């Protein structure tokens, strides 16, 4: 596994920050000029794009921050897993990545190139989301199946699912899966126009929640089939996954929460588990009025008495296309260390649901953990990771 976020540049740093209930979201922001700098809190990865380039020894022109974050996380995952260059380059190693921002972080360059105000910048091939994985393909010389998925905020959960499907169907022996997204003026203004950005730190599942905070980061995981592990360390088993659509509204969830309910239910079915076997839910919990109430209701509908749950959006913000992968890493940390992390900034339960998330770092037995990701376009996905 590899991860980079507002609370750490590695799995170890993220783990320590989660244990310490560190909040990486603040109004200190210096990535690019925006009217909202200092006004809205963001979960910024505290490394400049230039420093990322230097650290990663990237000299090619046209490489975006989205791609650099991905490369950072993937380097860590590869080193952690110990797979060889030969294995990465074999025809049966797939790379499935997700992102929603792509090169949209390059506001000025894109504006000028798209409106014919230049002779062309270095970034002409970097704007679309596929450019991240095309860069990683070239960098690591990957020959297996490569794909980019965009289901908005559930993108990287679907990347994990697609990687698992490729292996199950014999199209890959090994799948490198994950997601990345960086903060961009584009998404800041977009979510702001929808009036779902909180001017304070987000408070998932709290009665007085005022919206989400945007964050950035990346995570990659390397999946292998049980028979191909060859003595490598194994952190967890991906036992369940499911994707369903809420079919209600382009940018909000239905009151009944059919999409979240169906994705959670579908993941249980694939894992062949009954609801009572889930020990913990890593909730999508963005801190918006709509998401947290609907997700809670869907959990009550499926579980009757939902298990312990929490959202890490208070730690790192909503990392959009990266969130499913980053939170997969966090879920797996819970399984490895038999512990769960605090849902930050919570005060009062939502009256209509009466649900209280985990509020402090807690040691507890965790055998099966469910991780939710829901996105625009009604795209809901749930994953289940199990202890090995």
């Amino acid at each position, binding site marked *: 596994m590899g991860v980079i976020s507002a609370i750490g540049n590695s799995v170890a740093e993220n783990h320590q920050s989660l244990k310490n209930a560190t909040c990486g979201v603040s109004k200190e922001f210096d990535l690019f000029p925006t009217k909202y700098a200092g006004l809205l809190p963001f979960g910024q990865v505290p490394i400049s794009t230039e420093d990322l380039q230097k650290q990663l020894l990237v000299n090619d022109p046209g490489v975006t921050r989205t791609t650099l974050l991905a490369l950072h996380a993937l380097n860590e995952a590869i080193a952690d897993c110990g797979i060889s260059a030969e294995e990465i380059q074999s025809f049966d190693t797939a790379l499935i990545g997700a992102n929603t921002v792509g090169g949209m972080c390059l506001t000025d360059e894109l*504006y000028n190139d*798209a409106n014919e105000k230049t002779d062309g910048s270095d970034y002409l091939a970097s704007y679309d989301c596929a450019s991240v994985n095309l860069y990683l393909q070239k960098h690591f010389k990957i*020959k297996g199946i490569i794909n980019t998925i965009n289901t908005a905020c559930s993108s990287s959960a679907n990347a994990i699912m697609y990687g698992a499907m490729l292996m199950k*169907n014999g199209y890959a022996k090994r799948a490198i899966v994950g997601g990345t997204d960086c903060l961009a*003026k584009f998404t800041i203004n977009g979510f702001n126009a929808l009036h779902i950005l909180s001017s304070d730190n987000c408070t998932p599942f709290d009665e007085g929640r005022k919206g989400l905070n945007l964050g950035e980061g990346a995570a990659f995981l390397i999946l292998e089939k049980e028979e191909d592990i060859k003595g490598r360390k194994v952190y967890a088993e991906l036992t369940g996954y499911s994707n369903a659509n809420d*079919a209600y509204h382009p940018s909000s969830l239905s009151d009944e929460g059919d999409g979240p309910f169906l994705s959670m239910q579908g993941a249980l079915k694939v894992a062949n588990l009954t609801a009572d076997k889930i020990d913990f839910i890593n909730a999508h919990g963005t801190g918006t009025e709509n998401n947290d109430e609907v997700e809670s209701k869907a959990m009550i509908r499926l579980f009757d008495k939902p298990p312990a749950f929490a959202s890490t959006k208070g730690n790192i913000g909503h990392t959009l296309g990266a969130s499913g992968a980053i939170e997969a890493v966090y879920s797996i940390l819970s399984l490895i260390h038999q512990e769960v992390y605090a849902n930050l900034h919570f005060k009062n339960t939502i009256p209509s649901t009466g649900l209280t998330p985990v509020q402090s770092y807690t040691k507890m037995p965790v055998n099966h953990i469910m991780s939710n990701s829901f996105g625009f376009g009604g795209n809901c996905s749930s994953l289940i990771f199990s202890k090995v």
Partner: protein
Amino acid sequence: MLYIHKTYCISAQQDLLQANIELINEAVDKKLLAIEPSYEKIPPGILRRMGKSIRMGVGAALPLISETDNIDGIIMGSANAGMDDCVKFLNQMVQYEEGQLTPGSFVQSTGNVIAGQLGLITKNKGYNITHIHLGLAFENALLDAMMQLNTNQSNTYLVGGVDEISPFHYNIETLAGSYKKEDISNKYLYETDSPGCVVGEGAAMFVVNAEAASSIAKVAAISTIHSTDIELLKQQLNLFLQKNIPAGENVDLFLSGENGDNRTLPYYTACETLLADDTAVVRYKHMVGDYATVSAPGLWYACEFLQQPVPEHMFKKKTSKTEYRNILLYNNFKGLQHSFILVSNL
């Protein structure tokens, strides 16, 4: 494998199998713009707010969904759906200096907007996903459908590929040198020896399941690779043929994605050298142009050629065969993303 039961295609040609090259639609300003239907199935209030790719995608899918009993999931491939709205929102943001912006374009700017809208309009709560991997976005959608059907054998899925010539995307690709600089007619696309293609757009949709009965075609196999190495590509094609063409059979028709770009032509000719003497070679991009998800109309053509004759002007090489059992599609996007799709009759 999967079986195709219904198809719908929107492209630059009203008559996609126009037999007379003199009657095929010509590119306007070197753009093969889609001939759009009247979209009777899209509610007018929603239609007005839709960008072109969303309109084409939803408009091509709805007729198929409405005549199919039950669609269990929607699987889309689109490299740049939402791109136009994305730059519209960006322009608004720059012009109003991040002032009070309307979120309409932002919500429609996400790549998953077509599948999302289809889920919403048809109240489809099943599997819903969008593959956006540029020149292999549609291929991954098709592969996804195969895998879903392998697990859920009684299901039926809608699979499609959609992309538009958005003005902003066109500007970026023009700066990147993707299109022909000289004035040429798409009718004589293959007579050019210069870099660049003629851009196209469109939407092709397929209703697929695991049932052979009453189907139009079988998608027997797909293979994709990223490489600029012609030798590696040839190796991949040989492996693909060995693995997937039944003993005693051959590729009867090679549906080539040749696009008039002299930078990618060597890949297409390299593939042709590996095929048998009696393999017909057929081209289609003078009809629909070239774009990231052009394999979707390519697959539509393959389905047609299992049922009816190939127009003369589409042949690069004609053979004595008039009926085809195995059709191999090969597409190459920007010299890097390659796909082979084997389509056969049952």
